[in-house]
C-alpha cells in the first residue's frame, strides 16, 4: 500500500498529467495515420524529452507506444490499411465487417479488446512486480550479458527466412556501436583519424535515420492513395458488451501478449499469431475467421495491446530492451542517469510502479477519447502520403539537429535514412541494427565486468540463472538449426521432385525421339508393319 502511495505521489503533478494526455491523444493520432507509426514519432520526440523529468519524458513515449495500436485499428478496419505494422491482422476480420456494413461494431470491438489487453497486462505486471523485484537482483554482469545475448539471438531467429541477413545487420549494429574512443583503454576504434567519429555514432542519429528519415523517403517517393471512407453512425459502446461474450478468447490472447512481450525480440507479431490461431482452433465458427469474425478481431487486438506493458519488463528489470521502441526509451533513462536494471527494482520501486499506473491511466484516457472522438479522428487518414513525407522530413530535422547542433549528425542521419529506405525496399529488417547497437554496448560492458572474476570458461555459467540462460541460448540455437535443416531438406525434396518429373519427362521424350530416329528401329517398325498387314490379310 505504501508503495502504491509513493507511486501515486510521483504521478500527482500537472506536467505528468499533461504528458499522459499528450501521449495518449498523440499516440492515437499517430497510429491512425498510415505510414507514420510509433517508431517514427518516438524517434522524433526523443531529444525533446531529454529536457523533461524522466517520468514525464517516459510517460509521453509510453503513451505514444501504448496508444498508437488503438489508433492503428481505425484505418485497418475502415480502409483495409493498417495504421501501424502490428494492426495488419486486424484487417483480416475488421475490414470484412466494414464491407458488410458493420464498421461501428468492428471499431467498438477493437477498442474494447485493446482496452482489455492493455489493462490486463498492466494489472498482471503490477501484481508481478514484487516477484520481479526478488528475481532481478539475481542478475549480475554475467547474467545480463547472457540475457542480452539471448535477446539478440531471439531477434535474429525471429526473422524467418532472413535470419542470415538479420544476423549480419545485428553484427553491423554491434560494429557501429564500437566506433569511437574505447572507454577503458582510451584507444580509438575505426575513427579513420576523423574527429567527428571520436565520440562514436549516436544511437538516436541512427534511430532517426533508420525510422523517421527512411519513412519520409518512402512516402516522398510513393503515390498518393485514393481513400474511400465509410461513414460512421451511432455510438461505439456496444463492443464492451460483445467482448463480455468472449471472455476466454480475450483472456488467453492477453496472456499470450504478456508472455510474448516479456521475451526480448518476440513481440506483438508472435503474440497475435498465437492468439489468433488459438481463437480459430477453439472457435465454434472457425470458418468465419478472415471473413469478419468478432473472435478473430478480439484475439488480434487484445494480444497486440498487451505487449507494450510487458515489453517494459526486460527493460526495467534487466536494462535490456527487447525491441526498437524500448531501445529508444533506454536512451531516455541514460540521459537522466537512471540506470534501468536490478538496481532500479531494488532502490526505486515506486518509480517502476508509477510507470505501470501511468500506463493504466493511459488506457482509460485513450478509450474515453476514442469513444467520443472517432468520427472526427478518422479524417487524419485523408492526409496525402507525400505531404506526410514532407512533414516527417521537417520534423526529423528537430530530432537530429537538436541533439548536438551538429551538421555531421544530420549527414549521418541522412545516410542511415538512405540505408533504411533501401532496407524497406528490399523487405529487410532494420530493427536488428538498433538492437545490435544497444545490446552490443551492454554486452561489451557486462562481458568485461563478468570475465574479470572468471578463471575458467565454465565458471561463467556456474550460477543458476546464468546456467539457465545458457541452456536457453543453446535450446534456441538448436531449435533454429533444426528448423533450418528441415527447411533445407524440404527445399531439396521440392527441387528434386520438380527436377525428377521434368527430368523423367525430358528423358522419355529424348528416348522416344532417338527410337524414332535410329535406322535399326526404322527397320524394326517396317518389319512390324509388314507382319501386321499380313495378319490383317488373314481376315
Amino acid at each position, binding site marked *: 500500500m505504501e508503495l502504491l502511495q509513493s507511486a501515486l505521489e510521483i504521478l500527482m503533478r500537472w506536467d505528468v498529467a499533461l504528458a499522459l494526455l499528450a501521449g495518449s491523444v498523440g499516440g492515437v493520432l499517430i497510429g491512425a495515420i498510415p505510414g507514420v507509426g510509433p517508431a517514427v514519432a518516438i524517434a522524433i520526440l526523443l*531529444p*525533446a524529452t531529454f*529536457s523533461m523529468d524522466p517520468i514525464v519524458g517516459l510517460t509521453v513515449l509510453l503513451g505514444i507506444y501504448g496508444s498508437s495500436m488503438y489508433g492503428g485499428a481505425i484505418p485497418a478496419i475502415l480502409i483495409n490499411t493498417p495504421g501501424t505494422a502490428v494492426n495488419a491482422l486486424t484487417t483480416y476480420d475488421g475490414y470484412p465487417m466494414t464491407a458488410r456494413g458493420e464498421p461501428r461494431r468492428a471499431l467498438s470491438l477493437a477498442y474494447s479488446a485493446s482496452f482489455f489487453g492493455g489493462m490486463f497486462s498492466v494489472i498482471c505486471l503490477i501484481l508481478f512486480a514484487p516477484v520481479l523485484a526478488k528475481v532481478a537482483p539475481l542478475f549480475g554482469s554475467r547474467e545480463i550479458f547472457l540475457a542480452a545475448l539471448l535477446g539478440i539471438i531471439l531477434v535474429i531467429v525471429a526473422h524467418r*527466412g532472413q535470419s*542470415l*541477413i538479420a*544476423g*549480419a545487420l*545485428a*553484427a*553491423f549494429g*554491434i*560494429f*557501429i*556501436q*564500437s*566506433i569511437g574512443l574505447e572507454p*577503458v*583503454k582510451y*584507444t580509438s*576504434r*575505426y*575513427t*579513420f583519424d576523423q574527429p567527428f567519429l571520436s565520440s562514436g555514432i549516436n544511437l538516436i542519429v541512427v534511430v532517426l535515420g533508420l525510422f523517421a*528519415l527512411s519513412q*519520409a*523517403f518512402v512516402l*516522398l*517517393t510513393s503515390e498518393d492513395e485514393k481513400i474511400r471512407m465509410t461513414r460512421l453512425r451511432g455510438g461505439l459502446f456496444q463492443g464492451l458488451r460483445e467482448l463480455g461474450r468472449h471472455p476466454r478468447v480475450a483472456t488467453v490472447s492477453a496472456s499470450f501478449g504478456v508472455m510474448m512481450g516479456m521475451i526480448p525480440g518476440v513481440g506483438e507479431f508472435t503474440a497475435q499469431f498465437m492468439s489468433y490461431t488459438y481463437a480459430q482452433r477453439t472457435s465454434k465458427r472457425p470458418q468465419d475467421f478472415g471473413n469478419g469474425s468478432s473472435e478473430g478481431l478480439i484475439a488480434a487486438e487484445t494480444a497486440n495491446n498487451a505487449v507494450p506493458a510487458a515489453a517494459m519488463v526486460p527493460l526495467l528489470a534487466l536494462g535490456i530492451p527487447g525491441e526498437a521502441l524500448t531501445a529508444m526509451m533506454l536512451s531516455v533513462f541514460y540521459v537522466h542517469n537512471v540506470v534501468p536494471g536490478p538496481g532500479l527494482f531494488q532502490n526505486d520501486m515506486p518509480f517502476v510502479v508509477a510507470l505501470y499506473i501511468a500506463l493504466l491511466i493511459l488506457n482509460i484516457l485513450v478509450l474515453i477519447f476514442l469513444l467520443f472522438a472517432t468520427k472526427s479522428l478518422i479524417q487524419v487518414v485523408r492526409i496525402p502520403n*507525400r*505531404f506526410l513525407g*514532407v512533414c516527417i*522530413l*521537417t*520534423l526529423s*530535422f*528537430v530530432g*537530429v539537429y*537538436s541533439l548536438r*547542433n551538429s*551538421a555531421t549528425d*544530420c549527414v549521418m542521419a*541522412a*545516410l542511415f*535514412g*538512405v540505408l533504411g*529506405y*533501401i532496407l524497406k*525496399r*528490399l*523487405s*529487410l529488417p532494420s530493427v536488428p541494427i538498433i538492437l545490435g547497437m544497444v545490446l*552490443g554496448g551492454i554486452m*561489451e560492458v557486462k*562481458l*568485461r565486468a563478468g*570475465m574479470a572474476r572468471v578463471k575458467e570458461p565454465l565458471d561463467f555459467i556456474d550460477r543458476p540463472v546464468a546456467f539457465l540462460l545458457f541452456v536457453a541460448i543453446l535450446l534456441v540455437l538448436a531449435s533454429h538449426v533444426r528448423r533450418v535443416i528441415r527447411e533445407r531438406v524440404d*527445399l531439396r525434396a*521440392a*527441387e528434386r521432385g520438380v527436377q525428377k518429373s521434368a527430368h523423367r519427362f525430358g528423358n522419355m521424350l529424348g528416348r522416344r525421339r532417338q527410337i524414332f530416329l535410329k535406322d535399326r528401329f526404322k527397320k524394326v517398325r517396317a518389319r512390324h508393319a509388314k507382319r501386321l498387314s499380313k495378319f490383317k490379310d488373314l481376315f
Partner: protein
Amino acid sequence: MPTERERRFVGPRRGQLIFALFFVAVSVLLLSQIGSQTKWIEKSKLFAQPRFWPAVGLGGMVLLGGMHLYLMPWRRITRYDVTELRKWAQVLEFAAWFMAYVLLVPLIGYLPVTMAFMPLLTWRMGYRQPRMLWLSVGFAVSVVVLFKGFLSVKIPGAAIYEYLPGALRSFFILYL
C-alpha cells in the same frame, strides 16, 4: 518461371544481389583495416581487448553476409536490379533537400527556413493548390512554435538574427 529456391526467398528479387554484394564488400574492406584501426593491448585479456568487439561485429558481417550472398538464388545482375538502383538514387534528391535545410537553419533561422522549406518541398511534390501551400506554412509555424517555443529544444539562433534590434533579437534567438 521462378525456381523453388527463388519462390521461397523472402522479399522481392530486385536489388537483393547488389545490396548483398555491396554489404559484403564493405564488410571485407573494413575487416581488412582492423589492424590499423584498432589496437591490441599486451597483457590484457581477449574479452577486454579494444579490438574484440569490432572483430565480433565485422566478423559477423562478413560471415553471415557472405553466407546470405552465397545462398542467394541469383548470380547475375539483371535490368530489374539496375532499375532498382536508380530508384535508390532518386532518394538522394530528398536527402539533399534535408541537408540544404540543415545548412540554412544556422544562417537564416529556424522559423524563416522552415516557412520556406515546407511550401517549397510541398510544391516540388506536386501539390500546387493554395490550400495545401497554406497548410504547409501553417504546419511549419506550428512545428517551430511547439518545439522551439514550448519544448525549448536546442536549436541555436541564426547568424542573421544578430542584425536585429536588441529586444527583438533576444526574442528571435530564444523562441524562433
